[in-house]
């Protein structure tokens, strides 16, 4: 017979809303408290952008159970899509974002078609391969992308709302809140997606592919859809990254960034919705702080990662939320 223990029951839904409330309170008030801790707004902007990338990646790893080691490719394509649009097409920030999402999203959708039948390590390996192909294209196509030096000569355009113009180009705080608004829409959509019947089929695939198949769920198609959606959101993060830096470079497509995205998601907690954001925060802050002391910052971040994985296998937020949280 089964024994009821407090442990065996999932935390009440209230716990999840509490996490969301804390996350939003902190994000909304960043300009008020961050300078007091010696931070600067651009650092918070970086957290938002990489946090969005990690959360988008986590749709695949944490909520579909499929590992990609090449998500930087879509991040980088998003960045180039936005940068090239601003440089050659039009000085429109929304158009730049749209083009970035399209470039990364379509690339992910087409590539996804080819690989959904692969599983596990094989899937991860082909995603690395595609990422490196994208990297070398960006690296070699000097005329278009600026090659190794990266794409320069564009700046984000002020946001024209029709009745008012928001100067996100020069006002850091305005730009931060612009990023936060995009982040809110993107993560809101992700939350709705995961709460939908389609989202539940992804959890089903993660939990037990065989059972899911015998419930009539077309596994390959749903993994493909999840991959495409994940890539499109990652590309959005990449587009925002180009806007943040007014710059796009091949390292934005390199597999080291893919690895960092994985580290953020796992460190923060891949089963927790906000986990990757927590991981991204730790990563970005640690990188910023430690790299001001030593050039070997990556070894320290690596050490933190190892410690987190050893002592909190569910990640930082997973540990804080207790068992079964998401």
């Amino acid at each position, binding site marked *: *017979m*089964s024994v009821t223990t407090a442990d*065996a*029951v*999932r935390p009440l839904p209230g716990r999840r809303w509490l996490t969301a409330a804390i996350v939003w309170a902190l994000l909304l008030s960043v300009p008020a408290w961050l300078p007091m801790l010696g931070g600067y707004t651009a650092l918070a902007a970086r957290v938002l952008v990489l946090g969005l990338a990690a959360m988008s990646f986590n749709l695949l790893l944490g909520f579909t159970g499929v590992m990609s080691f090449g998500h930087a490719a879509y991040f980088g394509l998003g960045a180039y899509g936005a940068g090239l649009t601003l440089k050659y097409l039009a000085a429109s920030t929304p158009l730049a974002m749209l083009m970035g999402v399209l470039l990364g999203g379509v690339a992910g959708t087409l590539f996804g078609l080819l690989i959904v039948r692969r599983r596990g390590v094989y899937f991860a390996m082909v995603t690395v391969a595609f990422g490196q192909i994208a990297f070398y294209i960006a690296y070699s196509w000097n005329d278009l992308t600026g090659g190794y030096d990266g794409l320069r000569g564009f700046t984000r355009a002020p946001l024209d709302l029709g009745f008012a113009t928001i100067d996100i180009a020069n006002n850091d705080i305005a730009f931060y809140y612009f990023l936060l608004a995009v982040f809110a829409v993107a993560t809101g959509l992700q939350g*709705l*997606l995961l709460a*939908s*019947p*389609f989202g*539940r*089929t992804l*959890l*089903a695939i993660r*939990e*037990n592919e*065989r*059972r*899911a*198949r*015998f*419930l*009539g*769920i*077309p596994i390959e198609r*749903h993994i493909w859809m999840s991959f495409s959606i994940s890539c499109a959101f990652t590309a959005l993060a990449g587009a925002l990254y180009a806007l943040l830096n007014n710059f796009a470079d091949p390292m934005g497509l390199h597999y080291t960034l893919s690895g960092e995205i994985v580290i953020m998601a796992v460190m923060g907690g891949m*089963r927790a919705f906000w986990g990757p954001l927590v991981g991204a925060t730790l990563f970005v802050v640690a990188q910023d702080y430690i790299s001001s002391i030593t050039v070997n910052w990556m070894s320290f971040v690596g050490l933190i990662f190892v410690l987190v994985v050893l002592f909190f296998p569910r990640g930082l937020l997973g540990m804080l939320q207790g068992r*079964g949280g998401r």
Partner: protein
Amino acid sequence: MTMLDVRNVSKHFGRLAAVSEISMQVAPGELRAIIGPNGAGKTTFFNMISGFFAPTTGDIVFDGVTVTKLPVAARVAMGMARTFQITEIFPELTVRENIRIGVESSLGLRQRFWLRARDLAVVRRGIDEAVTQAGLTSKADRLVGELSHGDQRAAEIATALTLKPRLLLLDEPTAGMGEHETYAVANLIRRLHKNSAYTIVLIEHDMRVVFNLADKITVLAEGRMLAEGTPAEIAENPAVQEAYLGKAE
């Protein structure tokens, strides 16, 4: 009238003939048990029926349609559902969520990004029905992975039932269970058969369960059909006694 018509199927893995020329007909509403010693080819036979893999030769006709080479999803859509020897569930989801995935899949909502209020009401009703049927009402919000073996099995069967299957395939539903749990699962199967008129094919090792539940029994040995008949006929059959029952008792 036949619900399931298996015609002369064989399955070869390389030079090994796991199943050789077995035929079987199951009538609507029948509960058929497949028994046989280890290595008799029972699970291989099952896997061909459910579409896990195709037979090397022979045909499988379900409800008048040849399904021999159809993929799993197509068979599920036609009304075939199965459980596995080792319970296959979604361990880190609750009983209710496990069942909900089945309900939404069977209602054709699996690709929806949102639910209308009307659909949601239907889904809720389906979940409640299945939870009650499986006798898991008091455990509906527990994670399935943390339930007892018997309750996990009940949750698996309940999830399969959400597909409203016309044929339910159960691979050793009481495997690895104690007295009490075996009794509970056997009772669940009896209810499904007697009260809800499900057509059920099951593989089972527990002879008390088999002889109490089955309308007809198919005996396999070494990949071949040894005998087929009512429980009384099988109990009397000398070949079965020699090859199987005699050895077991």
